[in-house]
């Protein structure tokens, strides 16, 4: 995939404010149990559509983190 991929520009990217807040709070304490508990509480307060968005963004972030982990290890040899 490239930044110049013509299909990429045609997609919309929306993040609801409540979802954005939940993601921001989780991002600060991503590796801790408290962070996960706060995420669970925040998810319970979201509507069904917002929860779908939250899952989608979290899945994308997770894959992004995995990709960067692999890239860093590839560079370090």
């Amino acid at each position: 995939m490239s930044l110049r991929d013509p299909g990429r520009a045609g997609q919309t990217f929306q993040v609801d404010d409540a979802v954005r807040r939940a993601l921001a709070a989780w991002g600060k304490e991503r590796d801790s149990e408290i962070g996960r508990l706060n995420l669970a509480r925040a998810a319970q307060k979201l509507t069904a559509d917002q929860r779908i968005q939250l899952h989608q963004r979290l899945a994308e972030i997770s894959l992004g983190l995995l990709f960067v982990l692999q890239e860093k290890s590839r560079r370090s040899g």
Partner: protein
Amino acid sequence: MERDEALAAWAQQQRALARSLNVSLEVWMDELDAAAVRTTGLTGAVLGAAMANGLGMAVLDRLDGPKLAAEARTLVDPNPPRVASPVLAEAIRRADEIPAGAGARRLKRSAPDRPDRVEAEPLPSANAATPDAPGEEGDP
């Protein structure tokens, strides 16, 4: 070794994340598969993570979403359960998370434990009549 530890930590985080979101690991891995083909969201996530780790935008040229999702699935669920029931599959995947008891061993064994058959002389009552079998006591 350090790489393996980082990947194992990532996989562990995914399992914890699925639990926090109150979804099964199967559902969460489906979410990862779906995220792999949403190029805009995935590109944004990769860029954000790359910038935070001091990598440049050139990493995007090596991004292959479906391949990444397949690797993610292998990390999160290295030994997929061979059962049809989603409830039992989730139980097997989560069995190692409870340290106490022998649940994981029992769920993951390939064959059930059966008592050994003991070959011995028949007991004195072996030929006695019962409501289900006439027995041999009265036979000439």
